[in-house]
């Protein structure tokens, strides 16, 4: 099966999920429209809160890129980038991903703007964003919510998973889409 037909199969994913959710909700007698609006309202507030993050990241990356500073960083990192066979943007996204969810999302959108979502880096960024989470944030919030200060091996384990996700993303995107 080629990547193309595989991709086409996945286009059933979202319509299918929405169909199942609404059908099941209807069968269970959920007041679907009211409940939907309630959730959407929460989503609206969440997205509005995201705007300052987007502005910050877009401006920082815009300055970094347009000034030519990014070319210097690429030159400095090129030995590492050659080994892992990934573009600079991907490495930066990897670092930001485990620190801040909104920042990583903003960075991915910026990559889509610059290179297009169907470019190699666009697909790689999508895969990375989808397959990992904001490790440090989750660990900090979850542990502090119950007053735990000694986190033992939780952080190394989270970082291990992040590296695995990055390596797997680079491998699979190169394999399928190149």
């Amino acid at each position, binding site marked *: 099966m080629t*990547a193309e037909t595989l*991709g086409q199969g*996945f*286009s059933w994913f*979202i319509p299918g*999920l*929405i169909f199942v*959710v609404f059908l099941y909700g209807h069968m269970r007698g*959920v007041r679907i429209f009211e*409940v*939907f*609006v*309630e*959730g*959407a*309202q*929460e*989503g609206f507030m*969440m*997205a509005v809160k*995201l*705007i300052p993050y*987007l502005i910050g*990241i*877009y401006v*920082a990356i*815009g300055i*970094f*890129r*347009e*000034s*030519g500073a990014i070319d210097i960083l690429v030159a400095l990192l090129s030995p590492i980038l050659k080994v892992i066979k990934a573009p600079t943007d991907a490495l930066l996204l990897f670092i930001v991903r485990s620190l801040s969810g909104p920042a990583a999302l903003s960075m991915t*959108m910026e990559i*889509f703007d610059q290179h297009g*979502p*169907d470019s190699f880096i666009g*697909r790689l960024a*999508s*895969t990375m964003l*989808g*397959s990992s*989470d*904001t*490790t440090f944030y*989750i*660990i900090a919030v979850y*542990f502090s*919510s*119950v007053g*735990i200060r*000694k*986190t*033992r091996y939780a952080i190394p*384990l989270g970082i291990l*998973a992040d590296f695995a*996700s990055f*390596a*797997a*993303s680079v491998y699979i995107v190169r394999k*399928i889409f190149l």
Partner: protein
Amino acid sequence: MNFIFSFFILSGIIVAAANGRIDIITNAAMTAAGNAVQRAITLIGIVSLWLGIARVAEESGLIDILSRLIAPLFRWLFPSIPKGHPALGCILMNLSANMLGFGNAATPFGLKAMQELQRLNDKPDTATEAMCTFLAINTSSVTIVPATLIALRASAGSKNPSEIVGSVLFATTCSTLAAIVGDIVIRSFCRRRRKF
């Protein structure tokens, strides 16, 4: 994050100044700020739609069904939680919501799970094994339907926004497996040394 942010901006300004192209900075900053808000408008639509659907799934009990399906696996992953303890239920709900891409619906269950796990803890300031396992699986992200991502790609003009589902599934499985295996290895290592 603070360091990265200031690094991007400061080094950008320094490099532009060194190249004698300082005028670029003003332009780049203003254009970027405008673009960010334009993207944000699209994002508002996507996030609102998806959380609306997520709420319907939660209310109808669809997330409960998925939890019941994956329950047997989790008794094996969390041997230190007694059978029928509410902690297991919360963990299952949290991970099920995450799997469906409803990250926001997942957080309240996650925090509840931590409270329940804390009740099983003899040393209240130190993480238990079950907590570490739970967070390892949680942060490695078990996504089946990366919905927000697909919608974002679509809004950015992708020809086939869902084509990344396969690669996401592969990468997320690898990272979750790495987390589980790493957890088991560290846990048995700690038990043998009787400390940590």
